[in-house]
């Protein structure tokens, strides 16, 4: 038995018989048994096609199907193709313990045939509200295929159609309607069989001569509105609506014959089969376009008029939960503004909010996108060093607010990431590069001493403030003792390198040298980028040594 919903089709085999001659006004019986017996398996049903010479209608025929038990015979009148086949039909069906109803559809053409189909069961409610149609929307016949649709199986499957309806499980009577959707020859015959009574009846009512005409009014995309996550997918089906000559409607899922597009671009992608993938947050309209046909009877022909066919669906790509993947640089100086800090990640939305666990830290945004925020981060001068958590909160996209993922439910709108505040505390002698008597370069005629060192900016716990370009300026105040009789001079600014280091030369020149063993003590106070450094150095100048904080 062939599948009923059109998603499966039976293999089609054509077996020609040898030509026979029927005399004028004569009759001849032709047994099909010899042909059917040549097939590898018994057939539950078949179509019979007779070609004859002579004028149309000059031959009449009837097919008698005799069940093997010999207690059921079904006679079917043979129609002429061309003007005799049933292009559509509305026929009664009945099911009970002894009665079956089967619709046979035969595609008589060499091309596929789409079929509009619906079953309406008698309304069993009291008072009756009218039957609700049940649609098959994927019914397609291959060339020369005969399809048998068993109404009992269709009813008992209880598979919802596009309208979420089923044939009521208890339904026993109703009508079944079908119509061609393409202008090709299709024969239809509804057969009701009561084996216990040995009775069969069949119908081939033809209600409309032309295929169903496409109607834009009932065509829609399903789902017509939905939400997606970024990278989430949703398949859209197009259900086209057709009307027969009596205004009865049928639906057909069109499949991949539409051209798909979306507007604006960049929010979703759509493949040729209507599969939509979320690309970036936002809203888009997905459009399916094709060409439909309207049929108008014209004698024995059907005039065709092409019309635009298609529809649209709206899709909103939802906000994802923000994720911070990196912050660069992720260390910021206390009391300073670190410009151009890049917070990278995803799902930030169009107007993200950046917050910090330390209120002394602020971000002036210099730009934001769904994946990157540029911050000029200022750490208040009174902030302590240490870790600070950065939180990015999405506010949705394009002012539309937060859009929940498909399926709803609550979700986080922010993400956190640790960063660090550096609080420069001291300028420390990291190493001595050289020292010795200062020459005339620095002291002129006076004797003196010079010490070349590498200084490093450190936090209170000794961590290097490894930031280049910090301007270090100092002031040296000579106090007591001052056995060398020196004054303060030549304090220059320095700039840290990437390690937070800078070269420094301490120098003392005195007429008391080189003979004096006394010393001149000084306090060296620092500023970094204009802000005072908490720790001051204690510098001891002697004729043959210079120490900083005892080093």
């Amino acid at each position, binding site marked *: 038995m062939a599948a009923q919903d059109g998603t499966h089709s039976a293999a089609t085999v054509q077996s020609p018989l040898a030509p026979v001659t029927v005399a004028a006004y004569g009759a001849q019986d032709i047994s099909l048994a010899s042909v059917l017996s040549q097939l590898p398996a018994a057939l539950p049903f078949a179509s019979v096609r007779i070609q004859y010479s002579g004028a149309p209608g000059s031959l009449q025929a009837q097919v008698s199907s005799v069940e093997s038990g010999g207690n059921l015979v079904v006679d079917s009148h043979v129609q002429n193709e061309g003007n005799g086949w049933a292009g559509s039909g509305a026929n009664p069906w009945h099911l009970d313990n002894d009665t079956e109803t089967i619709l046979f559809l035969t595609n008589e053409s060499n091309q596929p045939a789409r079929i509009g189909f619906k079953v309406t069961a008698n309304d069993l409610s009291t008072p009756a509200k009218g039957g609700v149609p049940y649609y098959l929307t994927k019914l397609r016949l291959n060339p020369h295929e005969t399809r048998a649709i068993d109404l009992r199986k269709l009813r008992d499957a209880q598979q919802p159609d596009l309208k979420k309806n089923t044939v009521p499980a208890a339904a026993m009577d109703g009508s079944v309607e079908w119509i061609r959707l393409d202008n090709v020859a299709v024969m239809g015959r509804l057969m009701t069989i009561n084996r216990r009574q040995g009775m069969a009846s069949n119908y081939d009512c033809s209600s409309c001569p032309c295929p169903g005409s496409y109607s834009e009014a009932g065509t829609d995309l399903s789902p017509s509105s939905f939400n997606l996550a970024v990278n989430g997918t949703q398949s859209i089906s197009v259900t086209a609506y057709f009307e027969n000559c009596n205004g009865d409607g049928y639906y057909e899922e069109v499949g991949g014959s539409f051209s798909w597009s979306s507007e604006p671009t960049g929010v979703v992608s759509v493949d040729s089969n209507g599969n939509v993938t979320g690309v970036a947050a936002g809203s888009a309209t997905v459009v399916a376009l094709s060409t439909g046909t309207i049929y108008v009877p014209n004698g024995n022909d059907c005039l065709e008029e092409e019309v635009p066919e298609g529809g649209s669906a709206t899709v909103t790509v939802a906000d994802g939960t923000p994720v911070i993947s990196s912050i660069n640089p992720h260390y910021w100086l206390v009391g300073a503004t670190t410009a151009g800090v890049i917070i990278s990640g995803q799902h930030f939305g169009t107007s993200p909010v950046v917050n910090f666990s330390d209120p002394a830290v602020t971000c002036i945004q210099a730009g934001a996108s769904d994946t990157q925020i540029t911050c000029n981060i200022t750490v208040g001068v009174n902030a302590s060093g240490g870790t600070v958590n950065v939180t990015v909160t999405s506010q949705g996209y394009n002012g539309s607010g937060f859009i929940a993922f498909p399926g709803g439910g609550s979700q986080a709108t922010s993400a956190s990431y640790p960063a660090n505040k550096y609080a420069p505390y001291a300028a420390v002698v990291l190493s001595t590069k050289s020292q010795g*008597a200062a*020459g005339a370069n620095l002291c002129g005629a006076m004797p003196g001493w010079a010490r070349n060192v590498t200084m490093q900016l450190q936090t209170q716990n000794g961590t290097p403030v490894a930031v280049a370009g910090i301007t270090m300026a100092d002031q040296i105040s000579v106090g007591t003792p001052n056995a060398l009789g*020196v004054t303060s*001079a*030549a304090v*220059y600014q320095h700039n840290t390198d990437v390690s937070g280091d800078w070269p420094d*030369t301490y120098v003392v*020149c005195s*007429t008391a040298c080189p003979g004096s063993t006394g010393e001149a003590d*000084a306090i060296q106070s620092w500023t970094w980028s204009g802000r005072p450094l908490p720790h001051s150095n204690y510098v001891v100048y002697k004729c043959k040594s210079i120490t900083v904080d005892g080093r």
Partner: protein
Amino acid sequence: MRSARFELCVFAAVLALSAAVHRTSLGGAQAGQSPPILAKRVASFSVRGVCLADTLLTLGQQEQVPLGIEYVDRDALEKPISHDFRNATIGEIVRALLGGTGGYTWRVRDGVLNIAHQSTAAPGNLLDRVLPDFEISKCSVGTASAALYFALYRDLHPEVTGYAGEFDPGNPDNVIGPLKLRNTPVRHVLNLLANGSKKRAWIVRVPPGHLDQLPPDGLWTIIEYENPPRHVAQWLLREIF
């Protein structure tokens, strides 16, 4: 065995220049014949929203023109300007940058484009002070700059019996000297520092009208040309004002 006592810079007197032999080319209000620096053609020079001081330093870095800037006011350090020059000479660019700002003068001295102001011509400008004797051995530019500071300090305060401090010796690869100069203005020494084998700039670090005083943290600073150019205006603004 080598003595433990050594000189940080070794004396080698190889250069003796007199202020009297300085070649000078005038620009701005006193513009005369264009020397090679001002005639140098620049294919393209653009700045966007950069103050005048950083604009000049960017031009110097891009074209490797040594600069000496002895006047900076708040506008020069704060006010953003934007310019696009195509196929213009250094002179035309400088004229466009400084010509309309009022009071600026510029001239090429010692191969250095010196940018001054009418007010800096006042008596007492320490850049005009003539040092009777300035000698350094081959040393870093930072050390040479400090040596010039100490020499000026000693010249201004011959009574001192000593001084103590510290300075930035700078990149040890940027060396200059030996120099042995007699009766030389401070500006000329600075120009020599700026116009070494590697070009750089010097810029004063005092507000207008204060060139007659030597502050403890110096009267000038040396700006090494880096790529990309280092913007110093914000720092100078903080230091000066």
